[in-house]
């Protein structure tokens, strides 16, 4: 009996010890948050794996850049655009070999490559560009980001490999906005054949990019195969797989066991742990995105700009960042757009000043405080703890805030159901992410904060409206002098960020990829778009 007991105990202890010693962890290891450089393309010497697997937490809603509202990460496997960002984030030709602009700055002519084939073997021509833009700019377009391109008034085919785009006014943002994922070029025949179902299944995807999508099991995995006829040359890895592993701990472990080569979207504690694991590198990159809590400007109390400022100054952003985001190298936002976006000016962290908050509340006639609720959904990293810290800060100045948590579908429904002014939307603040895929403040500011003609402020979801902002942003849109544009954006940001705040911008986000140190040629731009033409992994 004693023997049996001892054996059982030893077994249990052994399990505990084994569970405790995680693959060569060294708790005292150093942590570095510096921005990683993009890796050079693989040399090709030695042996490489024929399949690279990237694990991520959720699937794409559409494999069609126009309808995709997920992210920039995956689309460029299959698709290309007229121009693109290279690994240094410079704008270079993609499907367009060269381009020129007329003397009056109103007509852009793009000369297309003549050696481009779609995955089904069809020759790419200007007709595909025309069909893609006709669909994007149609009046009844369902494309969420169509407003970033609405300044284009005409797209015309000159010949099979030349196309012109005409704008009403000079457009300094043309090239930057052409890099937005909504501008990825689709096959004209597929647009016709699949309509809104284009990009919902593997069969309905036909692009000119480095990989063909050969299998898509929704919410499970995407399997890509290198496209032999890719115009920049076949990519170095034959197969590329995106494996959806929803649980972050399982994802981290799959990387450690070598079942996947790259993992993203890991929880803070896993990122920290993996930094010290041998054979794994954790890379941080600059990102276009911010997180914040946006104001519902149609709210009973928060429609008053003074009360929004009171809330804004009552929140100790630095404390939130130090507690929740500093461990992964993220820091306080210093403007309403990310530091990597054109038009950014450092306005500093919004001062934490509870006394000023109280004074503003008194001015507004609410010296005794007021109440509102904060809508949070947990897909945002650390969103709930951030909201909890905000609630505590607000309580200190007499504002009572409560938190309501919903899932993605619930959040979407609440956004979709709202009608101006603020009906069906009782929340005072709601969590939001801000990141222009064009890397330009035109999208980052104009698309969000201008008042739409019907007064129902298009994309800012919070009914923000400010006359001066409405006057300035259209001026910036047609200002060809970059220095003057930056000046205009600076003024707009002062208003949106400080004087008449639209949101409490919290953290400047980073792109974080954890990967096997055998991975080579991993390049990602500031939109989190991976360059699939250089990605490889040593055997």
């Amino acid at each position, binding site marked *: 009996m004693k023997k049996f007991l001892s054996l059982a105990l030893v077994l249990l202890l052994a399990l505990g010890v084994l569970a405790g010693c*995680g693959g060569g962890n060294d708790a005292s290891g150093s942590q570095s948050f510096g921005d990683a450089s993009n890796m050079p393309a693989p040399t090709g010497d030695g042996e490489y794996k024929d399949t690279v697997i990237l694990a991520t937490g959720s699937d794409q809603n559409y494999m069609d850049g126009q309808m995709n509202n997920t992210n920039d990460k995956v689309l460029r496997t299959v698709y290309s655009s007229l121009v693109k960002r290279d690994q240094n984030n410079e704008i270079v030709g993609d499907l367009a070999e060269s381009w020129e602009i007329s003397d009056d700055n109103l007509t852009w002519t793009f000369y297309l490559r003549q050696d481009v084939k779609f995955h089904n073997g069809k020759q790419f021509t200007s007709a595909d560009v025309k069909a893609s833009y006709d669909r994007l700019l149609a009046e009844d377009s369902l494309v969420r980001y169509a407003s970033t391109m609405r300044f284009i008034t005409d797209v015309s085919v000159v010949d099979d490999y030349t196309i012109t785009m005409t704008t009403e006014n000079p457009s300094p943002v043309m090239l930057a906005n052409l890099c937005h994922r909504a501008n990825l070029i689709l096959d004209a025949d597929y647009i016709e054949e699949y309509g809104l179902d284009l990009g919902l299944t593997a069969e309905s995807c036909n692009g000119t990019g480095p990989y063909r999508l050969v299998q898509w099991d*929704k919410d499970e995995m995407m399997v890509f195969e290198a496209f032999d006829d890719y115009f920049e040359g076949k990519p170095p890895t034959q197969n590329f797989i995106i494996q959806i592993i929803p649980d972050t701990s399982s994802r981290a472990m*799959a990387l450690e066991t070598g079942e996947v080569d790259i993992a993203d979207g890991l929880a803070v504690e896993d990122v920290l742990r993996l930094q010290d694991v041998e054979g794994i590198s954790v890379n941080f990159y600059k990102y276009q995105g911010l997180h914040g809590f946006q104001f519902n400007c149609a709210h009973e109390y928060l429609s008053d700009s003074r009360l929004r400022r009171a809330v804004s100054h009552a929140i100790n952003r630095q404390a939130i960042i130090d507690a929740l985001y500093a461990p992964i190298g993220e820091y306080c936002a210093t403007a309403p757009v990310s530091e990597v976006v054109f038009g950014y000016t450092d306005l500093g962290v919004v001062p934490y000043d509870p006394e000023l908050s109280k004074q503003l509340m008194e001015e507004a006639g609410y010296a005794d405080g007021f109440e509102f609720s904060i809508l949070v959904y947990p897909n945002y990293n650390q969103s709930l703890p951030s909201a909890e810290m905000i609630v505590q800060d607000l309580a200190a100045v007499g504002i009572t805030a409560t938190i309501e948590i919903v899932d993605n579908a619930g959040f979407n429904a609440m956004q979709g159901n709202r009608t101006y002014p603020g009906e069906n939307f009782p929340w005072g603040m709601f969590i939001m992410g801000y990141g222009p895929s064009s890397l330009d403040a035109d999208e980052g500011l104009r698309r969000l904060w201008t008042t739409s003609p019907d007064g129902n402020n298009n994309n800012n979801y919070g009914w923000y409206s400010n006359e001066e902002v409405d006057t300035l942003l259209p001026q910036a849109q047609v200002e060809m002098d970059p220095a003057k544009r930056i000046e205009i954006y600076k003024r707009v940001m002062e208003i949106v960020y400080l004087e008449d705040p639209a949101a409490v911008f919290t953290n400047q986000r980073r792109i974080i990829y954890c990967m096997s140190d055998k991975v080579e040629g991993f390049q990602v731009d500031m939109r989190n778009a991976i360059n699939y033409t250089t990605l490889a992994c040593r055997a």
Partner: protein
Amino acid sequence: MLRYTIKRLLQLIPTLLAVSMIIFFSIRLIPGDPISLMYGLSEAGGVDPAFIEQMREQYGLNDPLITQYFRYMGNIIFHGDLGTSIVTKKPIMDELMNRYQYTIVLALGGTLFGSIIGIAVGIISAVFHNKAADNFLMAFSMIAVSMPSFFLGMILMLVFSLNLGLLPSVGMKGVKYAILPVATLGLYAVGLIARTTRSSMLDVVNQDYIRTARSRGVSKTKIYLSHAFRNALIPILTAIGLRFGILLVGSSIVETVFTIPGLGRFMIDGISHRDYPVIQSTMLVFATTFVLVNTLVDLLYGFVDPRVKYD
């Protein structure tokens, strides 16, 4: 026996009808709408209402709920058609056929694993009643039953995949892949089955006929395994049947932790997309499997105990 079987199978019909109704109407109470989720928030900050209407019309979501329900059930009963996923546009039947195998392997494997270990633990505990081994094993079964499966799964993964490198942790591409998820589910079942076996065995071993057998010199092993166990089996079978149902639904967590493309994950993904046809169909399949297995357990009573009469 045949009559009883037919009667039990007929009873399935009202049960499943009630289940289908509850599922159908309750999922529509959750906020969120598959169409606006699918097409996102368009340029106008909310999808064009006319378009939403058109899509809702296309998927029949504008009809009164009761009409939708009867259409859904009609398609199942008369055409065997479970509908099409709003998100993937694929027939749900195809998806279910692909995914059911994984879930059933997990649930059956887990039940088998749990039953073998649970019964063994239960018998040993009963034999060594109130001794150290009994206390130890009951403590073990208490830990097993109270440990959440996502946590247990992680621990097993950490030990057997990461530290020992023996087993894979992602996917389901063969027997090797099934071991950890089956063990995770099975260990959860061990607790209840072991406790039920123990108490059922203790009830039996205190009966007079066992004492008589002992006094006649029959060996202890033979008494426990041959006489007592057989008589103790009915409550154990009931416990196993019920546990199977819990494992079936619990598979969704294990499938998420081990990234297995089973029915449970399909259901969870369906819920997050508010893909009504997917949620309805997966839940219905879960319910049907559960009811069928419990009917099977009821029928097994007769084989285990000839005194059980079916009429």
